[in-house]
């Protein structure tokens, strides 16, 4: 018996007087024990489809056509009351962001027990035993203790396990995972996905997985449905879709997704921009000795001695950053060193709490390190103030993760991009205009954006504006802090291409901060891997990825989703 059937589903939202058709004829079927992934970029209607299956559409949304069958009963016309009995009992829901999805003033055991209480499952003692059993099953160590803790005492991955425990408490036939691992670190993500796989094997639960991440979907699903603008672009067995995608859109997604690009399509971007050879080699050598600190420091000295154009633009040495009270400081960055060759990209990768953003802020002069030095073109910059700091900022610019938050909503794009020129007193009004026009053209934006305000632009366009602003004063180094992480994959691919082009043409160096190893592999020449503030591995990107020396690096790389797709892609192209 098919667990979930969606047949030509149509959903609209009413906004003001307008009717927006968000889902326009989506069909899919999930058999018991199967995992079907619905993949799409933002606005594709993937979440709406999942919501419609549980009757959880927002107040202004309604099913305007098609059928939804849970088991054999058509639920599309059901009342809220009838749906309520279904939810939790027949359909389990794993939410997107585990950090806000548990009642903060409830103990986690009570949160799990809640679904049992709602459906009046047995008595108090039986519920308590069931909660412990569930927490144990989802892999929470010491469940008796954990059940009495509050959500803020648990890590993100742990919270997601608790939420899964609640979702499967009544052994529903169908589990809906709505971007259930998107907010998690990559190693945690892999473990949660493993848990969902175990669950399917153990109890034959069918899973509807909603995700923007094609790599995750490809790795874990039996069937794939690719959505765009509320319509199905492609649907079928995952292996078939990966090997022989039928729609152009799917092909583009496969091409743009960074993990596939780096594993199957090779190092196109990276090889395009040929970095200076000499520092590359010396950095490679250094990486071999990275574990032995003395040797490492000796080499750092030598790299400073290198004269002329081969000298690194940025040399950071033994950075330490403590936060908090003097008595009990918390060490965010612990003895981190790296350098960036001119015209190359150095990436700092790590999961949350690894200290990568703090390191970037030190290089930008926003944060004075507790100890350690940063030299830019041989000049020490830590602790700079006033005129010295402003001079530094002309040379080191930054692009933020969130392109909406980093542009002043009240200014026009023209004002935003001109601002660095005005601040640094570069050129007169006419020259500034020319220069801004050039740079806007250079980031492939039409000149008409100059009079627009940030909210009128798309995310990708805004990020181009942020890049233009960073480049307009002619910096030597641009710090990219998760600069492509918030973008859809196709937009992300275009921005990465742009960054590669700009580096080739302008010779600018990048310090690329990211949690996304797939993207890093695509863009960076050299890479530092951070964990808990410490440098665990460093070296040329190809070497680190192909022959990781440190156990943690191996774990990280193993956790990158997209292997199966890459294999299929390689097969297809072979």
């Amino acid at each position, binding site marked *: 018996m098919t667990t979930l059937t969606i047949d030509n589903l149509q959903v609209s939202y009413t906004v003001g007087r307008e009717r927006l058709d968000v889902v326009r004829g989506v069909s899919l079927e999930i058999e018991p024990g199967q995992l079907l992934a619905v993949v799409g*970029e*933002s606005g594709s209607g993937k979440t709406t489809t999942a919501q419609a299956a*549980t009757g*959880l559409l927002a107040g202004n949304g309604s099913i305007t056509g098609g059928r939804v069958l849970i088991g054999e009963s058509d639920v599309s016309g059901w009342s809220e*009351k009838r749906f*309520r*009995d*279904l*939810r*939790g*009992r027949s*359909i389990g*829901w794993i*939410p*997107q*962001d585990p*950090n*806000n*999805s*548990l*009642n*903060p*003033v*409830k103990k986690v055991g009570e949160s799990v027990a*809640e*679904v049992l209480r*709602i*459906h009046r499952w047995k008595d108090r003692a039986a519920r308590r035993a069931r909660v412990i059993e569930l927490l144990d099953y989802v892999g929470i160590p010491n469940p008796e203790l954990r059940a009495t803790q*509050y959500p*803020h*005492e648990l890590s993100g991955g742990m919270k997601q396990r608790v*939420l899964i425990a*609640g*979702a499967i408490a009544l052994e529903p036939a169908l589990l809906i995972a709505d*971007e259930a691992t*998107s*907010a998690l670190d990559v190693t945690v993500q892999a473990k949660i996905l493993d848990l969902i796989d175990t669950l399917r094997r153990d109890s034959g639960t069918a899973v509807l997985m909603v995700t*923007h991440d094609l790599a995750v979907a490809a790795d874990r699903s039996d069937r794939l449905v690719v959505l765009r603008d509320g319509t199905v672009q492609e649907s079928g067995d995952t292996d078939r879709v990966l090997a022989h995608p039928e729609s152009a859109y799917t092909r583009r997604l496969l091409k743009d997704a960074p993990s596939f690009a780096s594993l199957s399509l090779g190092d196109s971007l990276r090889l395009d921009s040929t970095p200076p050879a000499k520092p590359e080699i010396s950095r490679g050598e250094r990486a071999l000795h990275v574990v032995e600190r003395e040797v490492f420091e000796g080499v750092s000295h030598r790299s400073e001695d290198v004269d002329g154009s081969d000298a690194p633009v940025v040399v950071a040495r033994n950075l330490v950053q403590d*936060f*908090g*009270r003097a008595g*009990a400081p*918390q060490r*965010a960055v612990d003895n981190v060193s790296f350098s960036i060759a001119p015209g190359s990209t150095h990436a700092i990768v790590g999961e*949350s*709490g*690894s*200290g*990568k*953003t*703090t390191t970037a*802020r030190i290089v930008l002069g926003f944060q004075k390190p507790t100890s350690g030095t940063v030299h830019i073109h041989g000049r020490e910059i830590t602790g700079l103030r006033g005129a010295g700091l402003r001079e530094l900022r002309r040379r080191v610019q930054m692009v933020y*993760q*969130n392109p909406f938050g980093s542009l002043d909503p009240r200014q026009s794009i023209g004002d935003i991009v001109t601002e660095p020129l005005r601040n640094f007193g570069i050129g007169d009004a006419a020259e500034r205009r020319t220069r801004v026009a050039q740079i806007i053209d250079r980031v492939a934006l039409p000149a008409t954006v100059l009079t627009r305000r940030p909210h009128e632009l798309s995310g990708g366009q805004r990020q181009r504006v942020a890049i233009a602003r960073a480049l307009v004063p002619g910096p030597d180094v641009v710090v990219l802090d*998760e600069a492509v*992480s*918030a973008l*859809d994959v196709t937009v992300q691919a275009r921005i990465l291409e742009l960054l590669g082009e700009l580096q080739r043409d302008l010779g600018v160096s990048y310090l690329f901060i990211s*949690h996304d190893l797939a993207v890093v592999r695509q863009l960076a020449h050299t890479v530092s891997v951070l964990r808990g503030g410490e440098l665990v591995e460093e070296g040329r990107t190809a070497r680190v990825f192909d022959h990781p020396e440190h156990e943690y690096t191996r774990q990280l790389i193993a956790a990158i989703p997209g292997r199966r797709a890459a294999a299929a892609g390689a097969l297809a192209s072979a």
Partner: protein
Amino acid sequence: MKYVLGRLGQAAAVLLAAFTVAFVLLQAMPGDALMIKFENPELGLSPDQIAALRVAYGADTPLPIQYVHSLLGFLGGDFGYSIQSGTPVKQLLAEVVPGTLLLASLGFVAAVLLAVGITILANLPGLRRIADVFRALPSLFVAVPVFWLGIVLIQVFSFQLRLIPVVNPGPVEGLILPVLTLAVPISAPLAQILIRSVDDVLGYPFVAVVRARGAGPWWILSKNVARNAVLPAFTMAGVLFGELIGGAVVTETVFGRAGVGRLTEQAVSQQDTPILLAVVLLSATVFVVINLVVDLLYPVLDPRLGARKRGIARISRERKVVAV
């Protein structure tokens, strides 16, 4: 423990500063009330007599000494003497505090009931259609002048409906209208913050999760939203107390009840600054104590804060990726 001590010290500092502000405003500025009273030609006092009186009231000593003197007096529970009647302020206050305390506590309880009632009615699943009416109620309540409300209530209940006698009402009857008058404006900000925080909490992801587990709206409101939504209201306790004092001044004046408010109103009319100084300081003390209690109690009510105060909060500025 260290936190509690620090918080106590902070409270004491605020009180000292409040005393200083009140002292500067009421005692140290020129044109003091003594002169107004005794230089009145009708009294026919000679300059010598005035000087003697000033010595008696301690008005001739330099300001810093006056300041220390009053401060020590206040710490020892001595609030000085009323200029008009010469009675110790402490005695005047002792006579009227119980009455005001009764009025204020009843008014507060009524306000809380009113606010909670409005919030529930504004969110009741069955009442969606008329919820907007209840949502608009607090905005109406804040716009109503307390004194006018009292007068209108007297007009309606005493003169039109003749339910409550104006002259010599019984102790209970006499309290109904004043309590109501006091409660309405106090309930308004409370209801506003409750309604808003219920709305906020309803938008949190965890509510969606509970919904997806099959909970109905009533279950969500009572078992999940209520506790989260009540928390912000506690931070208003101090401000509400201030409103109660202000409300008492007006209510007692309108209804002609003896009380701290009435005493204050008369003190201002007669420029009797020692009384006002004492009332200001007593209120500031109660305000600070309320806030102190709320602050110390809050971590007990909200488990997250306990952790944050103990410094377990994450230090890293690392940002989570925004999921698309």
